[in-house]
């Protein structure tokens, strides 16, 4: 029982560990008990019950699986859409063009209904977010063991295939959106206008520090909520898939099929929410309050 519990635990934690590449500092005890020698060592992080090498590596390490899958999916998206864009005809569209057009029009409708300023960046940004996040989430529907198994056969110790279950991926996008919020706030209202917006409301100039505190918390909450909402949903969904995968193989489908079907809704919805909130935040950045 104890070993079974251990294997379940290690199975779960193995599936939730990224393939991290970074530098282990000198003198670190590695997962196999060896000690890192002079000058440290650049390597993939391994983890065991007692050692967490990825944490030891600190900030200067990179999750290779997250980067690989997110960039591959981004390129897949752009390649597909670019192919359609090159051959785009104003006559009768083919199946592929029809499909792409329906997505583009869906995004355009959303942008037009929320964002009322002239900005050529917003619609392509929203399209990129929607499709890219959707594709990253879609990796969740690949049975949890397939790709990690193939990877382990190839000698790769960890492989987390859903980039949006990595807080770095979602936080990275959210920070990029945050940068755009700050940029457009200052561009549209000027530094003074932006500062006034942060400090003179909601309670008037006599409570300036209090206003500032409220508004800055609200401002920072935007990217944080954006990142954590997507990450939390996808991480939880992935976790449920992993737990289902612990069941005997003949019983898994009873839970995994309904959960996967339900998850189709979630991955689309999360991509949509990320897109709409981005548009809303940028629309707010363009407007005087």
């Amino acid at each position: 029982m104890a070993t079974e519990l251990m294997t379940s635990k290690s199975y779960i934690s193995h599936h939730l560990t990224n393939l991290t590449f970074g530098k282990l500092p000198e003198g670190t005890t590695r997962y196999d008990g060896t000690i890192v020698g002079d000058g440290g060592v650049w390597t993939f992080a391994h983890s065991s019950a007692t050692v967490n090498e990825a944490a030891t590596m600190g900030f200067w390490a990179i999750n290779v699986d997250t980067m690989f899958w997110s960039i591959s999916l981004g390129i897949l998206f752009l390649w597909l859409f670019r192919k359609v864009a090159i051959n785009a005809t104003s006559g009768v569209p083919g199946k592929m063009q029809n499909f792409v057009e329906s997505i583009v029009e869906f995004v355009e409708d959303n942008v037009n209904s929320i964002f009322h300023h002239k900005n050529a960046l917003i619609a392509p940004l929203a399209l990129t977010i929607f499709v890219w996040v959707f594709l990253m989430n879609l990796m969740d529907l690949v049975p949890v063991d397939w790709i990690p198994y193939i990877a382990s056969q190839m000698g790769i110790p960890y492989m987390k295939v859903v980039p949006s279950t990595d807080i770095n991926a979602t936080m990275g996008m959210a920070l990029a959106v945050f940068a755009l919020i700050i940029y457009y706030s200052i561009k549209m209202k000027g530094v003074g206008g932006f500062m006034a917006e942060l400090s003179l409301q909601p309670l008037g100039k006599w409570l300036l520090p209090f206003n500032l505190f409220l508004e800055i918390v609200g401002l920072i909450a935007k990217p944080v909520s954006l990142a954590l909402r997507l990450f939390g949903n996808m991480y939880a969904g992935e976790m449920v898939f992993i737990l289902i995968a612990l069941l005997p193989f003949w019983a898994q489908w009873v839970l995994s099929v309904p959960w996967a079907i339900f998850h189709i809704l979630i991955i689309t919805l999360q991509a949509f929410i990320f897109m709409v909130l981005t548009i809303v935040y940028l629309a707010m950045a363009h407007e005087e309050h």
Partner: protein
Amino acid sequence: MNINLTIIGQIIAFFFFVVFCMKYVWPPITAALEERKKKIAEGLDAADRAERDLLAAKEQAEADMQDSKEQSAAIIEQANKRASQIVDEAKEAAHVEAERIKLAAQADIEQEVNRAKETLRTQVAVLAIAGAEKILEATVDEAAHAKLVDKLAAEL
């Protein structure tokens, strides 16, 4: 679950994807959509115009038909009028001719009657003289009684 460089990598990737999408993906697709919208609008317009033209042509044709009907009716009426006029004229001419022929015939008859009367008169005079000669069995001086006999003949 560790925050690390991946976050920067993701930002860079995101940036490049958005720029690529903005430059090479979004404009051609929306341009195609826009152009199709325009084409459809033009097509609908053309259909509307054609419908209006068709309606106008129908109306024109109906009016033309009405016109030609009226014209033909007028022509027929005129022809009828002319025909009856010709008939009338012919009747009149025939009437006049008949009258003329009748008058000529009457004149002929009268002449014939007069001539017959004249002949009869002379013959009666001769007959009367012959008869008187026989009755009187005497020679009558023709010259002396001619006047008397003529008077008698004239009285017949």
